[in-house]
């Protein structure tokens, strides 16, 4: 029997690749550094282009074309997938088609195959939490820094004995035939872009943080409030290209932030009482049918200002006084705002440069580049090494899925 395929990163792209491979009879080791998989998509609330849930998943082979909700994707019960959460790649060696991969597996405090989400532990201890009702695997997570008496009681009383508080990290070395990189993108934390005050002023947040606030299943139950005082936020300003198209940070366009921002602007303008949104931009880049978001935003009364923010000052009651240079009118405008949302650049995830170096891959602005650029074959990034999703550069969910399928197509061809 052939060696398994290693998929690094269990977001939209990695999970799709893993499931498609598994359904085609290929053994897969799916690794994610977090305890809850799903990657960035898990926190999106609504995803474009369909504006329904962040994520769904193909469920059963006997109903192709029909999707299942993410939480029902049963990754831990797929016979051909070995899901390893809380795990990082320490080293890759060997040769293409026979890679040796050393994994460091963090403590497995909760066995996801045993956890039945009965709620007992969450009731008696702060250390346990259900990340999201739609988390995957469907299991609670444990935070050892919050260890309390209740946690010990939970360990004892857990009906399935799924909890092990003194679990230790371990190591494992596996041999794999192919490697699929699906480590996604990371939203830049624009602390260094000091003109906006991110990290200093509480009411300055990023788009992904706004998505959490708007999510009815999120920590605030979908109430649009100012982080500083919990008061309802009515006047919202968004600023595009924070760190993108900027020689000081990332020279590339992050591609999806305009749509991301306008999706949120429309939700606020149409579904939140008295929500008023202004978007400060250089070029609005709603490619292809995403133009719809731009049309809808204008219809919903979202205000567009072409220019840049020149100053952000917080007043005593945490309102933000913002000065904007309007390049169409060639003058400065002043705004009083509750919440400033930064459309921050999407950057390569941490640790990617090391993988790129180890595997000797090409790069595209820090992301993974195709092995043979002239072939226009983006998913083949090395010999027996493939990539899909945000690791190839900012990507939407449908693109990530397509790329994952292209990868699987290529791997299956290699095994014919």
């Amino acid at each position: 029997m052939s060696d398994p395929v290693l998929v690094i990163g269990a977001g939209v792209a990695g999970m799709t690749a893993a499931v498609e491979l598994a359904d085609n009879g290929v053994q897969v080791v799916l690794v994610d550094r977090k305890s809850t998989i799903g990657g960035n998509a898990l926190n999106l609330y609504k995803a474009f282009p369909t504006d329904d849930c962040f994520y769904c998943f193909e469920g059963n082979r006997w109903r192709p074309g029909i999707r299942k909700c993410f939480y029902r994707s049963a990754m831990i019960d797929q016979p051909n997938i070995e899901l390893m959460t809380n795990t990082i790649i320490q080293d890759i060696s060997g040769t293409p088609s026979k890679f040796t991969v050393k994994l460091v597996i963090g403590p497995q405090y909760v066995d996801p195959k045993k956890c039945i989400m009965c709620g007992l532990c969450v009731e008696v201890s702060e250390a346990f939490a259900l990340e999201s009702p739609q988390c995957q695997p469907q299991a609670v997570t444990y935070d050892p820094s919050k260890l309390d008496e209740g946690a010990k009681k939970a360990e004892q009383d857990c009906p399935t004995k799924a909890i092990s508080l003194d679990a230790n990290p371990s190591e494992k070395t596996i041999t794999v035939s192919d490697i699929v990189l699906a480590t996604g993108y990371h939203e830049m934390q624009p602390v260094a872009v000091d003109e906006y005050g991110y990290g200093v002023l509480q009411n300055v947040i990023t788009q992904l943080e706004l998505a959490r606030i708007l999510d009815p299943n999120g920590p605030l139950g979908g109430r649009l409030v100012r982080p500083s005082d919990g008061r309802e936020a009515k006047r919202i300003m968004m600023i595009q290209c924070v760190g993108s198209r900027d020689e000081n940070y990332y020279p590339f366009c992050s591609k999806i932030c305009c749509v991301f921002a306008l999706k949120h602007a429309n939700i606020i303008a149409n579904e939140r009482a008295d929500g008023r949104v202004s978007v400060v931009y250089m070029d609005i880049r709603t490619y292809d049918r995403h133009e719809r978001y731009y049309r809808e935003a204008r219809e919903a009364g979202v205000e567009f200002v072409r220019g840049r923010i020149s100053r952000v000052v917080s007043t005593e009651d945490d309102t933000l006084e913002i000065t904007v240079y309007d390049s169409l009118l060639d003058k400065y405008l002043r705004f009083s705002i509750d919440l400033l949302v930064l459309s921050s650049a999407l950057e390569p995830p941490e640790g990617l440069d090391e993988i790129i170096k180890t595997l000797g891959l090409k790069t595209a602005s820090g992301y993974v580049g195709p092995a043979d650029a002239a072939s226009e074959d983006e998913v083949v990034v090395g010999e027996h090494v493939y990539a899909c999703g945000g690791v190839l550069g900012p990507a939407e969910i449908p693109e990530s899925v397509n790329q994952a399928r292209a990868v699987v197509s290529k791997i299956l061809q290699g095994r014919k």
Partner: protein
Amino acid sequence: MGNKSSVLLCTCGKQLKLDFDFLKVQVSKLGLADSVTVHDLLCQEEGLATIENLISKNDGRVVIAACTNQKIQPRIEQYLRANGKDPSLITYVNLREHSAWVHEDLKEASRKSLDMIRGALARSAKAVPLQLEKKNIKNHVTVIGGGIAGLESALNLSALGYEVVILEKAGTLGGHVLDLPMVAPTGKSGKEILKSRLDAVEANSGITVVTNAMVKYVEGEMGDFRVHYIVGDSEKKSETLTSAIVMATGFKEFKPTMMDEYRYGKNPDVLTQLELSKMLSLGALTRPSNGETVKEIVMVQCVGSRNENYKRDCSKLCCTFAIDNSLEVLKMSPDATVRIVYMDIRVPFENEMIYKESREKGVDYIRGRISMVWEENGQTKVRIYDSLMNKYIETTPDLLVLSTAILPPEGITELSETMGYAVEDDGHIKDLYGKLRRTETRRRGIVAAGAVTRPQFVFEAVTDAQAAALVLHNELQGGVIQKIARGAVLNVDDCVGCSLCAQQCPRGVPLMIEQAEAEELDEDQKFLFKAAIDTLNCHACGVCQSLCPSGATELNFLTNEQLWDEIDAVLEGAGPEEPITLCFYCEECAVSTIDIVGTRRIQYPSNNRLIPVPCAGRVSIIDILRALEKGASTVMIAACEKDRCHAGGTGNEIAQIQVDVAQDILNAIGWKEKRVEMFRMFSAEPERFIKAIEEMTERAKKLGPTPVHDGTAGKWVEVTK
């Protein structure tokens, strides 16, 4: 075969607040329950072994009342199959998310649970085992279109083991990419990009190329398509027998002859961007009007795109196209002046760097619009409005190049009539589901790759083609399709040939077959056409069943009798004292929403009973009316959001029609109030279900006893003056 089932109740590690003693006693009394076992952890090893033991009794009929089947069903089925047992006769009831976790009142939650178990027993009593079936199909795929997407999908399918025919309408392969002088970000020419693929196709004996081929129509279904086409000007008709089809017919560049303001088609020095590409590919940059060298070019973006009169959306590629061409122009004549008039420059990811490069090389960008083009002394004059400077500029370019909209290719709508894929408002082929299923189309066995679905960059079209190859490989499984036949089964004798199923199936599975013997029958009995359904091609939504006027087509795991028996059993004892809302919920978005409500333990009134259906489109008018006849006070259908039906896009719209008609019927027979309603939901917004169920509970209460409860339904009531 008996009709009794073993019943398993799971306490979820003794954590569920339900009266299991009551449930055990009450369920034991039910005639259809053979035995009742209360278990603490069915999902764990020991529990799975318990299920395996019980499956050997009662021919395998088991009712499992536990947590959501969306979670435990895969695990149970995998365990049983690994042990050689058939799980197809298990019926699930969700006691946890749909009852214990959402109703504080132990008694009410237990009663609701009991009713739903009773319903499941009734459904289980008439369940039939599902069989593993196998069929062999031709290992052959037809690719329509020989551009970059068509070539790439042909090569991938061939590598996956399929014989491939490429039908190309032009005389040569390659499509639009052939004419591109350079493709960002690599800077390679289109010919270079195509070369390795063209060579590979030529060297591959498993790929047959037919050029000058025009596809006329398609017959048949997945595994057995027949593609009809003609070659060249000949009247000779050809055909290909094939199992699946890749639509890769690319795009068409908009020719703005009707937009007078640009003088395209009247002034020979006004070109489209692709016309300029062709000129640059040939290495000759001259004015078409007089053959003189070109020193100044004005390019205009968004001609026809982002324009309500032509194409509403952005064409995505044109900004990069224009920049590519302007760099190529500067390569050929470094002294040339290039101005690009734009609204927003849209260059994704690293194309931004090409944009920057072009600025550095002196390409002049003017934000604004062209206000007028005219000719003067053999020169082209252009007036530009600059919105940043708020002023007008007049210039005399040698070439005016229009970045015109990317439109769908010819023939998409015509072919959709026989191929059965859906078409977007903008004329491109519509994805099965925009978020996750791009290359798939509504019609099973037909995928679409490349610009035929949306404007795509070359690398995107390549990825699209590779993904499309996988989608078809998943479907065709190398020519041997082996799976459990779970879906619609047609009893041909009962078919009346109305073709509703063939018209409305979300995936285009039923076919209408001409009846050869029909001629011999007399006029009354004659059906010229009857439906045929291949259960292995069906995806089991039940739309055909709810529409079938003669009950000829039924899902083999949820027949009409099964659902009616379940309705009757669930509603046993339902009356005016405690009005009951019956909720049919689809096992896609609705079940997720209701499960998430459960996981978040959001409380809602308990006087409702829930019945799962694979898709809302499975619920017929008769099912709705039956629920009312059996004592329900209100009936609701919980379905996917509008335009987001997970069963191919139309199941929830069919359900809406059923609900509308049911309302009309009720109105006509004097049930004035709205006791039937349809609700759309998705799991990211769990409150949608809460609002819906509260609304229907409220209506049940407010409207009081139904005519059924009053005993007046179905009776003639004398009208008094």
